[in-house]
């Protein structure tokens, strides 16, 4: 297992989450509506950040599958806030040069009449630096 101390500290700092508060109950993953889409599940994000195993998370599609619905934050009995960990890893990934998930040029092709504006705004917030 690769232990990346720098990235680990960075993610803990950005998220403001203390992953060692996790008691391994799995309620976050039990509650997650995007579970089946994810390679790494919310509890794994917390546990892998705790052990410094960051690289696999950074390269995983799971980062973009999290809906940011915050159900895991609401239900975690220990106040760990897994969605914030996912968000911090995602930010770490897209902050690299050229790592934006979405470009402005690509937007018109994705939009149709039913797409709410709010979706575009939050997509930019989520997928770009």
């Amino acid at each position, binding site marked *: 297992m690769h232990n990346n101390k720098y990235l680990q500290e960075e993610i803990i700092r950005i998220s403001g989450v203390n992953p060692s508060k996790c008691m391994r109950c799995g309620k976050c993953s*039990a509650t997650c509506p995007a579970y089946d889409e994810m390679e790494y599940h919310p509890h794994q994000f917390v546990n892998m950040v705790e052990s410094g195993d960051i690289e696999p998370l950074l390269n995983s599609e799971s980062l973009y599958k999290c809906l940011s619905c915050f159900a895991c934050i609401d239900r975690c009995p220990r106040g760990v806030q897994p969605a914030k960990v996912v968000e911090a890893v995602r930010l770490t990934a897209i902050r690299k040069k050229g790592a934006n998930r979405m470009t402005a040029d690509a937007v018109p092709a994705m939009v149709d009449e039913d797409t709410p504006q709010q979706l575009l705004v939050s997509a930019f917030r989520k997928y770009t630096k």
Partner: protein
Amino acid sequence: MQRVGVFVCWCGTNIAGTVDVVAVAEALKSEPGVVFSANYQYMCSQAGQDMIKEAIKEHKLTGIVVCSCSPRMHEATFRKTAAAAGLNPYMVEIANIREQCSWVHKDMLTGTEKAIILGKAAIAKVNLNAPLTPGESPVTKRALVIGGGIAGIQTALDIADAGFPVDIVEKKPTIGGKMAQLDKTFPTLDCAACILTPKMVDVAQHDKIRIFSYSEVTEVNGFVGNFDVTIKKNARYVKEDVCTGCGACVEKCPMKRIPNEFNLGMDNRPAIYIPFAQAVPKVATIDPNACNMLKNGKCGVCSKVCAAGAIDYTQKDEYINEKYGAIVVATGFNPISMDKFDEYAYNQSKDVITSLEFERLTNAAGPSAGKLLRPSDGKHPHTIVFVQCVGSRCESCAEKGKEYCSKICCMYTAKHAMLTRDKYPDTEVYVFYIDVRTPGKNFDEFYRRAVEEYGVKYVKGMVGKVVPEGDKLKVQASDLIANKQLHIDADLVVLAAAIEPDKSARPLATMLTASMDTNDFFTEAHPKLRPVESPTAGVFLSGACQGPKDIPETVSQAGAAASKVIGLLAKDKLTGNPCVANSNELMCNGCSSCANVCPYGAITYEDKEFRMPDRTTKVRRVAVVNPAVCQGCGACTVTCPSGAMDLKGFANLQIMAEVDAICK
């Protein structure tokens, strides 16, 4: 001037390792009042104590200073030594040169310097010490047990068997508590009622025990050995001594649709009721909020059918005053409310129940006569999901759950799962757990039997949500070991709700001035060595009011509390602590500041006549300390704006002398 002896202990190398004990003894020799100074390897040993005794006699010492370990360790030892040599034990001062000096310093020079300073301070204090004599107070040889569950029952029986009268105050119409509601008990699977009800009968028949059921404690005054308690006996509108418990009234009462609290509202009871068949006392009680006669003056059926003539609609609450030597708190627990756990749909579906409700569902005397049927449609459930730790170990959501582990849930869930599989082998039983905690005799074996012999499916992970859909409950959960999300169509979901102290505990603690933790569990005097005593003298703790407990643990703690009570009641007189506050009434201006801060209620005020310089008499309000109640905490001495309050043995003057000696 005192004649002070100084005794410096090496404590092997504990002190001598970082403190030059010879130099300390030498330096303290020239302090004011010191006539003798010595050092020895182990002052607390017999030889060390003999040395102190000899020195007291030989040098006619009037005070001694022992430079050794913390006074919590050996102050009592050296006080006894002094008393044996004819010196007042309160003329002994300890300078703590171990915990507060040698153990925290690495350097011999600084350690020695600090030890000398601490010694000087103690000498300065002992020079101002005065002999103190502890007071005595009598003991009322009667105990009060608050709460009539298994904890209260066991404590009362044990005290009464030792020959002391005991009163049990129970707020419900019957004693028995939570245990009376249980079906079977782990890990032996005895029937709870079969082992509890004989004890309830023993209580009822014991000539030393009185039961105040449907009653509560409303006021507590006094102190250890001499508590003065007011008990409110709520009107049950039935004459307790006349009612035979025949149940004719219960049968005929027309108001039959009142939620039955004994079955947790899963069925109904009439307005006049006896909670269960083996209730003690077996006396009917009228619910004043439901009875038509009491509310509107119309009905009176129960009175007509009662052959004994026990119904009395005019009965009033009654207040009883009684004196007690000791009080045992056995107020027990309740499951927490599930209202805030929306994700488990407790309030949306009748088929999501708590474990205590499950207990009633499987009890032969319960709402379904022991048949496990779904509360919604009365059908037999085929898939049951048990969820552990609902509200337990829940740190983030203090408004929802509890931070602690409720301790009993792992075992009762294993019991429920096992019994279900035993009675209904066609049922699939899942238990979702975070950890299975089974420390206890035959506990882990029991849990493993549920898995290995009864085929209960234990899944490591939590349930995320329960959604009622049609007549099914859609359960979405984690299986952390398989790294899967599970979707189960369940017929019944059972929540192992966290337990919390009964709501009556907090006001009771205020009345008793007994301390509680932030979870409203009563605090014990020492977590390891005095687990059944409250820090408030004369108040003892039994059962789950002190922390989550199962039945075997509760019963052993109940017995332990009883033995402490017996030890107290066996004494004719109690020796107090003479280091108590006293008020200089010439300086006291009667402002009440001290009474307001006193945590023990030891300070009262009285109007006293004073002779004035011009030979007139003036009545002034002054503080009076009850030395039997005062614990010597000193809160009043620092609060008093006029400096009238002082603590014997720790007078302001003595403390200042110590400070001066340190700063010199």
